[in-house]
């Protein structure tokens, strides 16, 4: 096929042209040294953390414009939700932010429980709080490994993945799945925590801070790492708020906003923890905030473990809206009827709209449910933190160097499953 030269007029045209390998894109205006060019990055790129695509306009090594293009992993989550009952939609939430599936389950359950006004037993809430923090640790571990890999070091990835495998083992013990857990249920949990699991968590929590310290020792004064992150991808507080950043990305710009403190859910009012903050607003600050969150999560898990000594129910005893236990279903008539009713009709929250958000490892993960009184949501909207966080990419990238792109994306910690829904 012959090559053609082309000068795109619109963004769409540019994006389409870059997909075609036989077309060269030329830029307008006189540029005798030919230092201006357009570079297509992704959607299949080792450092874009999934299928993110960015088109970069370069002047030499400096980025003058960046256009992110999403949708390569759009899986119609919201449309699927409208066609499923609330329980049926639960496994789909695992696949939203696949770095911390447990929190996503909990977020959906909290939203449905708010809509249907279901009270969850104490013990279930403590287990949820604890496992959400374990999920946060596992998510941050993956972020740390991949971000440091983007700066050029593979070793840390192997270290963090070793720890992540330990967390997988804990999830395996608790839920029966190592990764996509689907452990939460509307009104409680699928199963109680076993003494064996508690012991495994205790062992992990005891050893883990020493590992984080060793990584900090490796990285915090590493000259290459510092040069690749300090002052790179700067965003100030008001801009970050305006563009909608949440989570550690916002807190690294000095805005003290954590839903666990401001709109407490689960048991976060009953545990002591600090919200790490930084005023620097660059990639290094985002790294530091997340590293400090490791210790805070460990603190929360320790406090949860103390509260789990007294046994109690882990699922609400209200058969109209909460699934009965299997032992009941198999041995009693009422249990079987309720199981059938819930599977067939589902939880029917009263008519109205609710929004419930949690602080996930990326930021504010919210579920908006518009119920029409039936077992299926009329509209379920996922407010995914990665989607909104990615919106700040043009601000962060413009003016920085080509090689910093991957580090900036790494420091934002996006997950495309969630950003594209």
């Amino acid at each position, binding site marked *: 096929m012959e090559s053609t030269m082309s000068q795109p007029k619109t963004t769409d045209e540019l994006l389409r042209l870059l997909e075609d390998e036989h077309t060269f894109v030329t830029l307008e205006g006189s540029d005798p040294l030919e230092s201006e060019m357009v570079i297509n990055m992704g959607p299949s790129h080792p450092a874009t953390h999934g299928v993110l695509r960015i088109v970069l306009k370069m002047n030499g090594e400096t980025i003058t414009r960046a256009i992110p293009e999403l*949708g390569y992993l*759009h899986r119609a989550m919201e449309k699927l939700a409208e066609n499923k009952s609330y329980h049926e939609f639960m496994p789909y939430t695992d696949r939203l932010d696949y770095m911390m599936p447990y929190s996503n389950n909990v977020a959906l359950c909290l939203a449905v429980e708010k809509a249907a006004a279901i009270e969850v037993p104490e013990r279930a809430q403590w287990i949820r709080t604890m496992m959400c923090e374990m999920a946060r640790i596992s998510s941050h571990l993956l972020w740390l490994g991949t971000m440091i890999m983007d700066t050029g070091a593979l070793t840390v990835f192997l270290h963090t993945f070793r720890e992540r495998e330990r967390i997988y083992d804990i999830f395996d013990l608790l839920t029966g799945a190592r990764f996509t857990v689907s452990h939460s249920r509307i009104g409680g949990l699928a199963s109680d925590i076993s003494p064996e699991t508690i012991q495994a968590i205790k062992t992990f929590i005891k050893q883990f801070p020493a590992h984080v310290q060793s990584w900090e020792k490796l990285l915090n004064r590493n000259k290459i790492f510092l040069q690749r992150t300090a002052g790179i991808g700067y965003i100030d507080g008001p801009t970050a708020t305006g563009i*909608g950043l949440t989570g550690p990305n916002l807190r690294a710009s000095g805005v003290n906003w954590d839903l666990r403190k401001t709109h407490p859910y689960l048991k976060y009012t009953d545990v002591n923890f600090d919200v790490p903050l930084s005023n620097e607003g660059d990639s290094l600050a985002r790294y530091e905030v997340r590293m400090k969150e490791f210790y805070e999560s460990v603190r929360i898990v320790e406090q949860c473990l103390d509260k789990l000594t007294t046994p109690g129910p882990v699922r609400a005893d209200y058969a109209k809206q909460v699934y009965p236990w299997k032992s009941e279903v198999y041995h009693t008539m009422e249990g079987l009827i309720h199981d059938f009713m819930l599977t067939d009709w589902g939880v029917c929250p009263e008519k109205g709209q609710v929004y419930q958000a949690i602080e996930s490892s990326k930021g504010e993960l919210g579920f*908006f449910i518009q119920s029409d009184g039936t077992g299926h949501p009329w509209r379920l909207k996922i*407010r995914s933190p990665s989607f*909104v966080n990615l919106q700040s990419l043009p601000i962060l990238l413009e003016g920085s160097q080509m090689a910093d792109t991957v580090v900036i994306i790494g420091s934002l910690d996006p997950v495309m499953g969630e950003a594209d829904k």
Partner: protein
Amino acid sequence: MTFEQAMDAFRTAFSGSILREETHRGELTFYFKKTDVPAVCRYLRDQTGFNFITDCLGTDRFTDEERYEVIYHLRNLTQAWFLRLVTRVDESDLTCPTVSDIWPAANWMEREVFDMYGVTFTGHPDLRRMYMPQDFEYYPLRKEFPLIGIEGSIPLPSGGH
């Protein structure tokens, strides 16, 4: 200033614009005509400190009149307030004023609403499809669009085995 005081001041300032308000599960919702949206949003940001837009989304009510809704979730980050605004868009005039000049974060959110429901945001700087391919003809989150899609609407790569 408490949330109630701020909302009372807001009610007096926009007594003519507020069509209806409701509270469900402790969440306050105001309904507006779509022409009032820019004024209301600007007031809320500047006078009441709602400096953060959490989400802007669309819904399909599947009714004859005022079929689509555009919903705004706002937050005040200093006082930890939450507020929902709703405006309705009729099928005959699928436009709504943009708020992306008030909160830059609304840019992509409005693009998503456009992609999924076909609501055009007037004044939006870069209104393109967010997720679907640019040449996709349908608006997939509309209720009449089938979940499994329409065969042949997005082609597969040629040269398959």
